[in-house]
């Protein structure tokens, strides 16, 4: 009897244990499934932005913080290509100093940079919560503000620092929850998930991250260019953003990180920008911090607002290249920052840069937008032929004229416009120094040396030809199929070989490629 009871008790315990194990396994499977679903339905903007950060974090020397001005202004790939400086762009659209502080704190959990560059745009803003802003915003603006913060922080692991950031920047409890567990908001994406979502969920990098930056391959014109009159006063009091700037400085000082302030150029500026700049200058002066003030166009004229920006506040890829190069000059002087090019341990950086440069060249060889193509020829210092036949309306296009003048370094194109063309430019960068040859108006030159070899040029109102080495069968310009094309661009390789022929009709926004 006793034995039977003992056996029963033992059976009961075994059964309970079995039940307990089953429950644990069930919830483990469930947890795993939810985890997978979370990764699949998650919006991928943040994952994309930081896709390379986790792998490279220990090698990062410089971090950039700020708003879209910084996001579109500094390209870490370019910085590495030109100076060998390893960096990551942590800026975000609409990003204020408050967010910069918390993104820095999050980043410092994973890396130990030698320098931090902080853009001071919106230093005048005097609010902390991005879901309330200054209390005078529409719901749409508030939603946008929250959404942009998602783009920056979603992919960061849930750590104490991330929770502190959420608590500090978001006031509403319900909104905080969606940052702590973003599945609560993104599960709704189930009906629109695609192959990209699944691929990125398993860690596949389906898109280039540009090391956090967002180069704008856009050429726009017609945006307002107007600088407000320079004022000398700083902000009347320390705004919330100023207080957070001090926190950034304090943290950097504690960790021995050098800090540099910037204010990215703006084609249209306002009084509050000057207040921010003046305050930045005061703080920089008091704490012996380098301040690269690019708002002051008179003293730092490195940007052509018309050609290097795509709107009144943001640089295009041309502007980005110039800004990156400019900031890089100062970064290379920072203690501890060295040129890592050629270092085997930094091969990943080399690979990323090579890949990016390859993509840039591919873009150059088939860019559908003429303005952008001309900008890219300038940026990449490409060799090539640009031809505009007589009566080409592009000759009268003010922007094209400016882009051509920048490429040629002369105003010959204006004379061509006066004569109604034709116009020919041959760019030769094979020697390392760009050689420019321009031909304006109707003419025939039987023989001259160019990157192509012994060249013959015939330029008439309704005809153009570039023959090489006496081969009159093979015209580098296509005057048959693309006879009516407004602009012909031939991209040449190092030895003058044809890489790509592009035929543009800007009036019809059309491009054909051979």
């Amino acid at each position, binding site marked *: 009897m006793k034995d039977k009871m003992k056996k029963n008790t033992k059976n009961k315990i075994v059964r309970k244990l079995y*039940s307990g194990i*089953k*429950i644990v396994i*069930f919830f483990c*499977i*469930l947890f795993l*499934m*939810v985890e997978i*679903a979370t990764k699949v*339905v998650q919006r991928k903007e943040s994952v994309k932005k930081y896709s390379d950060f986790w792998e490279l974090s220990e090698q990062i020397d410089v971090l950039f913080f700020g708003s879209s001005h910084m996001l579109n202004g500094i390209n870490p790939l370019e910085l590495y290509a030109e100076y060998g400086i390893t960096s990551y762009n942590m800026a975000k659209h609409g990003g204020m100093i408050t967010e910069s502080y918390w993104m820095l704190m999050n980043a410092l959990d994973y890396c130990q940079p030698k320098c931090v560059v902080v853009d001071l745009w919106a230093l005048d803003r005097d609010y902390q919560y991005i879901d309330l802003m200054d209390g005078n915003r529409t719901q749409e603006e508030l939603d946008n503000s929250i959404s942009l913060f998602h783009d920056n922080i979603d992919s960061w692991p849930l750590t104490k620092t991330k929770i502190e950031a959420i608590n500090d920047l978001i006031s509403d409890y*319900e*909104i905080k*929850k*969606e940052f702590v*567990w973003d*599945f*609560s*908001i*993104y*599960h*709704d994406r*189930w*009906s*629109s998930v695609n192959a990209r979502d699944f691929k990125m969920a398993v860690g596949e990098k389906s898109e280039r991250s540009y090391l956090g930056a967002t180069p704008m391959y856009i050429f726009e014109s017609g945006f307002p260019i107007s600088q407000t009159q320079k004022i000398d006063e700083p902000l009347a009091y320390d705004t919330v953003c100023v207080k957070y700037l001090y926190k950034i400085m304090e943290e950097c000082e504690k960790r021995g990180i050098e800090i540099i302030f910037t204010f990215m150029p703006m084609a249209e500026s306002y009084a509050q920008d000057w207040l921010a700049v003046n305050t930045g200058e005061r703080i920089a002066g008091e704490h012996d911090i380098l301040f690269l003030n690019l708002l002051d166009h008179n003293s730092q004229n490195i940007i052509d607002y018309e050609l290097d920006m795509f709107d009144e506040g943001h640089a295009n890829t041309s502007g980005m290249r110039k800004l990156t190069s400019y900031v890089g000059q100062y970064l290379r002087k920072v203690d501890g920052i060295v040129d890592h090019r050629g270092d085997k341990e930094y091969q990943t950086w080399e690979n990323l840069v090579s890949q990016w440069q390859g993509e840039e060249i591919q873009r150059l060889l088939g860019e559908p937008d003429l303005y952008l193509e001309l900008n890219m020829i300038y940026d990449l210092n490409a060799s090539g032929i640009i031809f505009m036949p007589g009566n080409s309306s592009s000759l009268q296009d003010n922007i094209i004229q400016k882009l051509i003048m920048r490429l040629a370094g002369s105003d010959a194109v204006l004379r061509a416009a006066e004569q109604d063309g034709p116009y020919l430019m041959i760019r030769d960068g094979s020697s390392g120094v760009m050689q420019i040859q321009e031909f304006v108006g109707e003419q025939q030159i039987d023989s001259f040396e160019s990157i192509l070899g012994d060249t013959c040029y015939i330029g008439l109102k309704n005809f153009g030809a570039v023959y090489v080495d006496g081969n009159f069968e093979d015209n580098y310009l296509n005057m048959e199929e693309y006879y009516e094309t407004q602009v012909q661009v031939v991209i040449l390789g190092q030895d003058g070989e044809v890489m790509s022929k592009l035929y543009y009709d800007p009036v019809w926004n059309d491009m054909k490629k051979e």
Partner: protein
Amino acid sequence: MGTASIEFILFLAILLGVYHVVPTGIKGIVLLGASYLFYGSQNSTYLIFLAVATLFTYGSGLLLEKNIEYRSRAKVIMGITIFANLFVLGWFKYINFFTGGKIESLFLPVGISFYLFMSIGYIVDVYRGKIKAEKNIISYALFVSFFPIIMSGPIERAGNLLPQFKKEYLAKIKFNTERIRDGFVRMLWGYFQKLVLADRIAVAVNTVYGSPESYGGAMVFVASLLYTFQIYCDFAGYSNVAIGIGEIFGIKIIENFRAPYLATSIADFWRRWHISLSSWFRDYLYIPLGGNRKGTIKKYVNVMIVFLLSGLWHGAGWNFILWGGLHGLYQVIGVLVEKIRRKVYRLLNVREDAFSLKGVKVSITFLCVNFAWMLFRITDMELFLRVIKRFKDIQIWQLFDGTIYNLGLDRANVHLILIGLGIVVVVDFLNEKGISVSKCIAKERLWVRWPLYLAAIMIVLVCGMWGSGFNANNFIYYQF
């Protein structure tokens, strides 16, 4: 803290642990504390209101029992208690309606219609001697405030619930994985109905009712059908969640829905729809009014009174009263034409239990109910007329030209609704045949059972309309 929130699930998980760990003697206190915590999380002011209402009826019950021998005195006590409860309900919920907006109540405590009706039911049952007045304040307070049912019912009966809150009963409740699993599955089914279907359907319905002129009669009819399922999935969904929670804690809560759209008449519909409310009206209003015992005309009058008040219970608006009145009218007409119907069956030589006849009856009942729900859905009579006018211009092609995919939901969401409703209909049909799908699944082997449970959880989590992105609608019945 809404019942469709992560906080609630965590609250439930913690409570489940505490409930099964604490000494049996204080299980009731734990449940009461949890119920007050849950109700207080909606608004702490409501808690004071709930406590006062509880103490008042509790005291009245004891006083009534003391005077039970003196019927007239007992009747006065019961009358005062009922009046006080109805007055409070009327003040908070209907004062604005009855005074045409001249007086407005400061707030409307959530679930007030449910727990005050439960209190009234309790005092009448004590008066009738069906139950003894509850002496234990914890048990009584728990009866009024039990957290799964306080917000949206079912409207429990003291005779069913109070005995389950006795110490002796609670002491018998052990940690039983099968019971907890069954309760959880019931909850899951409720969440599926509410979050995956009802709230999703609401998007399409709101789109059409928001601008009926943009759609033809065919699409307005589809929207009315969708609303018919929306309100069912919404309310039945909540009831299933409540019953499931009760089961998890070993408390049996009465069934509230029984395949209502398979009803063969309006009277049958009300035996299947919101059973706890319709039976409450039957027991505490229809029968005291005389029921069907005082002649045919009085019976019709009683039916109309009950349904008009039932409509008013659902909301302070003429559309609700009209909705109730229409259901009353359906019932009266149903009785009036009963003889004619039978004659027709005989003439056509159709057996009353024939499947085809049942199909016709179910369809006609469904269409009548569907039409009445249109009154329930509209916000004012002007909208109702605008909606009805659309039937002059059917535009049948809108059913086929993809208009349905432009009602605020993409294709995947529309297909999910259709599949989901298909599942609801099949489950109801099987329930009608006495087959419980959840029990069938529970009998299966683990490798069949688990994937089904996991898939169901994932569907609710992924496809459910919850979380801050959607501001998931409060359950429709919250404000009743």
